[in-house]
């Protein structure tokens, strides 16, 4: 495989690096040795020493995860989406391409801006002879020209907009087997039965997986019965009636 040189001077961000990788290095993604990209990057970081930029590093991490995801989709062509809400491979592909096409326009526009700026940079404006001073209007002329209610609206807007930083893009999943066991027992205590999808269908894959573990656990303890018509179909869960003692 061709050794991959990662020129960090041109590194800007995920889409940029992706485009450079694809166009500059003339490689197909299936042949991109991600491991070499990462070691090249780490070497570069080491050489840079303490000046490493956290923003840049997290961007790199983001891009690598994007590449790993796409590549694994390519390597497993038959893979079906786990959840109905998830994009099909075709949709994901089209979406990524559309974003790359859109992004590439701005990348070229930035290059043109650079040229315009360099051309213009060979001409010099004169420094103003002195700073202009603003003459303030007579108070009588402007008294009451603004409405105090506008201040109130502005202040309320500021207060309203003051929220915790949006961390929506960070998936925070807190999940424990014990908790899933409690949830399942709780639902069964109230309703006696439920279908897996109706309760856990909207959850993250990790939550779904742990819930399934919890089901298996309860099955093993003999607390529930579960049935499924076919592979990947919904799972019906019922409380197992314990044989009456005596």
């Amino acid at each position, binding site marked *: 495989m061709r050794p991959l040189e990662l020129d960090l001077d*041109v590194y*800007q*961000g*995920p*889409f*940029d690096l*992706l*485009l450079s990788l*694809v*166009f500059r290095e*003339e*490689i*197909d*993604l299936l042949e991109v040795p991600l491991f070499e990209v990462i070691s090249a990057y780490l070497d570069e970081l080491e050489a840079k020493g303490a000046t490493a930029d956290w*923003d840049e590093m*997290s*961007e790199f991490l*983001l891009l690598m995860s994007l590449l790993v995801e*796409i590549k694994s*989709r390519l390597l497993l*062509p*038959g893979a079906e989406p786990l959840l109905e809400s998830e994009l099909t*491979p*075709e949709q994901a*592909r089209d979406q*990524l*391409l559309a974003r*790359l*096409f*859109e*992004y*590439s*326009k*701005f*990348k*070229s*526009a*930035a*290059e043109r*801006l*650079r040229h*315009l*700026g*360099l*051309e*213009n*940079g*060979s*001409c*010099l*404006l*004169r*420094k*103003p*002879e002195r700073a202009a001073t603003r003459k303030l209007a007579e108070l009588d002329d402007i008294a009451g020209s603004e409405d105090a209610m506008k201040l109130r609206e502005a202040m309320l*807007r500021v207060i*309203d*907009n003051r*929220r915790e930083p*949006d961390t929506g893009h960070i998936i925070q999943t807190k999940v424990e087997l014990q908790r899933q066991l409690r949830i399942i027992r709780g639902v069964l205590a109230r309703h006696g039965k439920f279908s897996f999808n109706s309760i856990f269908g909207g959850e993250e894959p990790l939550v779904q997986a742990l819930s399934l573990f919890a089901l298996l656990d309860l099955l093993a303890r003999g607390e529930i019965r579960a049935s499924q018509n076919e592979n990947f179909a919904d799972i019906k869960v019922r409380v197992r009636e314990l044989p009456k003692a005596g």
Partner: protein
Amino acid sequence: MTDDLELKRDLEALLFASGAPLSMDAMLGALELPGELGKPLVETALAALAAEYCGNGRHGIELVRLAGGWAFRTDARCHAVVSRLFELPEDAARLSPAALECLAVVAYLQPVSRPQIAEIRGVNSDSTVHKLLERELITEVGRSTAAGGAILYGTTQRFEAVFGLAGLDELPALEGFSLTEDQKDELRRRLGLMTVPE
């Protein structure tokens, strides 16, 4: 001395003294001319001045439309000589590729919010936006009415001056920067996205 010559002379003095691009309003104000009457007069005089200082190399300065106004600036031919005595503006040269990219997004899509910029670039752009704000190349222009009232950004007059634009309508059309169909196909192929999985 005719009025025409006097007006031309006054404008020359104003443009020289100002340094920064002068808007029509600023000129009319200094000349104490009312807008409807004064504007055509000033425009005629500016055209005459611009014909004289037209950047044909006869003068060391040229009169150009810049950042929504007019300004004298040194002719590009004198670049080497001027740069030996004075620091030429380096704003454009000092901007990182990431900053330029971010600036391009703001220039073409303004008013635009930080999340929108990040969406286009595929990367968080907060620190880049901050740098552009500090350099006064972009500025706040309001708040989005939707989506939590995100702050919206636009470019400044300084941006136009730094990149030698008379106005935003002088930005080259964005569509002209689209990838060609061949490049798009190449991108699809290289990403291995041409073959649809079964």
